């Protein structure tokens, strides 16, 4: 077992192994513990007090100008926000609240 681990570490490098194992393991554990369908807000969410408008302003502006909720239809926002959830690493809570805000038209 130790031999296999040593070979894997040698192949991907120690930093790579640390990133993959620690992030993957931690996330898997948290994901399994929460055991919720995608889109539901987790109990241990990071911003229980923040509104969708606040999260929209904070997260979007980190990379680009914030776009008006009226610039896309509710159905289009669903697709755009799924894209942003993956690209910008949004938490499920952020994704849900921002999407609700955008779909409501602001």
């Amino acid at each position, binding site marked *: 077992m130790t031999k296999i681990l040593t070979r894997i570490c040698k*192949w*991907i*490098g120690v*930093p*790579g192994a640390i*990133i*993959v194992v620690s*992030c*993957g393991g*931690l*996330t*898997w554990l*948290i*994901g*399994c513990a*929460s055991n*919720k*369908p*995608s*889109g*539901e807000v*987790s109990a*241990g*969410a*990071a*911003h229980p007090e923040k509104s969708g408008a606040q999260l929209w*302003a*904070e*997260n979007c*502006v*980190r*990379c*680009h*100008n*914030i*776009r*008006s909720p009226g*610039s*896309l*239809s*509710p*159905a*289009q926002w*669903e*697709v*755009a926000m*799924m*894209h942003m959830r*993956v*690209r*910008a*690493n*949004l*938490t*499920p*809570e952020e994704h849900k609240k921002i999407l609700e805000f955008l779909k409501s038209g602001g």
Partner: protein
Amino acid sequence: MNRSYFSFLNRIIVCGPTALAFIVIPLSVSAQDVNSTSSDYVSRAEYDKLKAEHEAMKQELEALKATVRQMATAPSPGAAPAQPAVPAEGPSENKQVVTTTSTVDELRQEVDALKLQIKETFPGTTKFLLAGYGTAAFTARSGEDPFFDAAFNALFLWKLTDRLFFEGEMELEFEDEATDLNLEVAQASYLLNDYMTIGLGRFLNPMNFFVERQHMNWVNKLPDKPLAVYDGIFPESEMGAQLRGVIPIGPTKLEYAAFVANAPGLITESDDVSEIGMLDFDNDANFGGHVAVGGHVGFIPIPEVEVGYGIQRSKVGPRDQAVENILQSVDVNYVRDATWLKGLINLRAEWGWSHVDHFVYDADGSQGFGPLSFNNNRNGGYAQIAYRPTHLDNDIVRNLEGVFRYDRINQMHTPVGFDEQRWTFGLNYWVTPSAVLKLAYEVDDKNGGARDQNAFMMQAAVGF
């Protein structure tokens, strides 16, 4: 007499009320009967009134039915609602018409919502979004002919289910008197759980913050892109699989991405000697058969700040002479829109390092420049500040944005033979949040005897 008189009076006093009682009680009972009788039997006037009300209600019901039928067969949800054909004959009728109209509005909203729900179940219609950006530019660089340029990047997004998502990005641009079509992204993503997403295909390089989040022309603050981190020492996209997500830790967030992908190639043969030792990031056929492993970790302690570290490691070069390659990057980002700043300030910096182990190029001298070996370490990056006075009242001024960037690449000891640094000053005007006109002047400085190439650049970029 007196006695008989009093006796008579006494009888009157006693019998009077009794007689009165006998007279009044039946009368009162009779009166109650009359009243009760009036509720059982309707007068002609009351009948006519009730009949008229009944007729009016029937007309309203018919009008409602007709309206619902019209809405059900209406060509578009935006069509105006039909008005019920109820004549407004008085105040009570007006009130009824208002109530009916509001009921019809509610019905219409419900029907619209249902229509939308039904429509959303159709695959490939409302679950699809065409996004992207277009660019037109002009560049006048010293030592080169000035030129106009245009590019178009189409981003196709499909949400197939709540967990499955596909994105594809195609770039069309003019290059060498021809139109180039490049597949930038083609990735299927699946949300394994709330904190973990797996992606397969071709994806933007997760270890490079600028490439993944900032390279889009309507997002990038200047007409050109920084040295080293873009089209420099890092790949722009990877072909393989990635695992990514975010872990909320109290009020902070930890982002992560880990990937395996085709390794870059090592340029060991070229007509242009300055390219020798560079990495070939268009190694889609994966010559050499190596696999790159890498990742990126980003920490967001407060919403305005993000710091990250990325790494990629692989073997490069011919299979029998492969050498180690390590790419690393550090990025810092601070974005704050504050009243005391009277606007939006945007600070970004990224630095990267590339290391390729010792390799002897053209070992037998057959290419005419070998045997050649050198210290194949390169590094570079950029620091940028942008400010836009978004809190000012003047519409024109608050849409202006000043930008300054310093970028640099160090590769003096490679066959390239020089280091380069640039200072770029830019002024942007934001027409909309995703449409910008950019003007910039770039001061270039190369050492090692290479010619400096200052540049004037203009660019219009539109994101959609």
